[in-house]
């Protein structure tokens, strides 16, 4: 399928949505290029599903516009938007076979534009091949596994040759092993079909691995948009830094380009701001040092296995929460041992 020409750019301009007194979206702007795979990432209640539903046309923005290929989507009926949507629950029609589910959108077309039945059947077969479920035409959804249902839902969405593909937590209902397999498969499928695709997820690992760009939402606002590398390495806000990957939060005082903890500099902040700030340090950006060498001084409370490496929890004087510190060398500090911590990399944000 050469969907690349059919895929369109999507532009969201200052979209806002309130439910009763609750502001789910507070003016979001986002431009998505044709054929791009974008992840909407955020915690529960951040507004990501609301945004997806606005784009789908299942809900209407109170303010702002959504443009498909430069055309205001408000003038388009749900049918004319040509959105392929995969719901988190898949929303398969359980009284229809897999084939009837996939063919539903084609058969729902007005008679003039409806393909002949033979062509519909052939396209259902091609789509089932595409999602790697050949021969399952006659099954009912209840006879499929979770992963299979998800692929049928995707085939059904692709059948209408959508201009935009929307996926709401596409892997949310699957177990961990299936998730991983489907993730790689979906990426390959996207490379093959080239649809403009948005997917909602709360799983940062999923977003970073799968998407061309990641849009991070929090509390109805867009925190940052960028490539996975950009948002991970250069988080624009404290929220993004804390949400993407693991990071230790250390309250600091900013002065003369330095981040001060307990009066002593612990990290070179760069920007010359003053006042309270927050220093975020990922566990692999600590090095152990002799006790008293830095202001970050404490004792090892605990050492645990963490995948390929081991990780220490260090209780630092003046910090309520223990710091997670990766241990790289074979020689590990013993539990209870006094240590100092040196920061080799981090992100500093002004404000408390």
């Amino acid at each position, binding site marked *: 399928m050469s969907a690349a020409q059919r895929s369109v750019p999507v532009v969201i301009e200052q979209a806002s949505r309130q439910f009763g007194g609750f502001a789910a979206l507070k003016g979001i702007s986002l431009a998505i290029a044709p054929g791009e795979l974008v992840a909407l990432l955020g915690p529960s209640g951040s507004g990501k599903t609301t945004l997806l539903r606005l784009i789908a046309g*299942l809900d209407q923005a109170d303010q702002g516009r959504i443009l498909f290929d430069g055309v205001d989507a408000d003038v388009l009926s749900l049918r004319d938007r040509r959105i392929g949507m995969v719901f988190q629950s898949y*929303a398969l*029609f359980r*009284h229809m076979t897999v084939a009837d589910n996939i063919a539903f959108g084609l058969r729902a077309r007005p008679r003039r534009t409806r393909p002949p039945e033979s062509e519909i059947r052939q396209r259902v077969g091609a789509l089932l091949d595409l999602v790697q479920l050949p021969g399952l035409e006659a099954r*009912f959804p*209840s006879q499929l596994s979770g992963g299979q249902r998800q692929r049928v839902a995707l085939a059904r969405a692709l059948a209408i040759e959508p201009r935009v593909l929307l996926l709401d937590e596409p892997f949310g209902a699957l177990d961990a092993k299936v998730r991983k397999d489907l993730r790689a498969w979906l990426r390959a499928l996207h490379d093959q079909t080239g649809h403009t695709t948005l997917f909602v997820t709360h799983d940062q690992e999923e977003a970073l691995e799968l998407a061309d760009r990641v849009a991070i939402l929090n509390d109805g606002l867009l925190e940052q948009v960028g490539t996975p590398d950009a948002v991970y390495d250069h988080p624009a806000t404290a929220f993004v830094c804390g949400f993407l990957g693991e990071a230790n939060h250390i309250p600091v005082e900013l002065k003369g380009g330095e981040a001060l903890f307990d009066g002593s500099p612990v990290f070179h902040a760069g920007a010359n701001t003053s006042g309270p700030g927050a220093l975020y340090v990922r566990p692999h950006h600590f090095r152990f040092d002799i006790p008293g060498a830095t202001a970050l001084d404490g004792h090892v409370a605990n050492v645990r296995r963490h995948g390929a490496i081991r990780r220490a929890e260090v209780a630092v004087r003046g910090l309520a929460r223990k710091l997670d510190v990766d241990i790289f060398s074979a020689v590990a500090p013993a539990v209870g041992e006094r240590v100092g911590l040196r920061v080799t990399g981090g992100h500093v944000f002004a404000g408390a």
Partner: protein
Amino acid sequence: MSAVVRRNGAGAWRERSVIPGFGLSFGIIVTALSLVVLIPLAALVLKAASAGPEDIWALATSRRVLSALRVSFGVALLAAAINVVFGLIIAWVLVRYDFPGRRLVDAAVDLPFALPTAVAGIALAALYAPNGWIGAPLAQLGIKVGYTPAGILMALIFIGLPFVVRTVQPVLAEMEAELEEAAALLGASRWKTLTSVVLPPVLPAVLTGFTLAFARAVGEYGSVIFIAGNIPMVSEIAPLLIFIRLEQFDYAGAAVIGVLMLLLSFILILGLNLLQAALRRRLGHV
């Protein structure tokens, strides 16, 4: 009691369970069921059989009995069908729309369960008799409802009204909103969405409601006799025939008609239940 009863009761026909009291509770329900329901119904069959094949055949094929059965079953089926249509509409309106007094209307749907049938009967008679509140104006237009099968229909609609609503309502309420949204996004019109996505999963419940409404209506007596007019061969229902036979002390005749009614309705209910099971399978409730 627990230990002893449990050990005694744990035959091969039941799974062992730590929950005590099976013997006692099973004994109570089976005894009560036998005394109140099963033995009396057995007496009915026994009495009917005592009539002898020729008498049974003669009675079963007599014009008056056939006519009464036709009225009872025909009108009950029609009433259940009408209740399906309006029951669906009422359930839809109650689940999907918000309007002032919705909760009150929702509660009121169960009135036929709570209102004694005799009360409904005289109220309907007061409404639809030729000199009644509605009957009189209708009579002027040349339409007769009271004392005709149409009157029976009114009573049976009343009696069966809640069944379809109450079986369909929870199914509609629990239906995933995403199904309709998916259909709309796939380009289906609202009508197409309703007929091919919303309605099919509801059909088994509709059929259940139809069966319950029919089962209740076919044997109904209290609400019907006041408004039926009870004209032999026209608006006489089968339960009334039983009554008449009893008043003539023709126990066997009454029993024969009773068994006939039960047989017919059980066959119909069985058929409807089989249809419903088939429908559920077709609809993917595997």
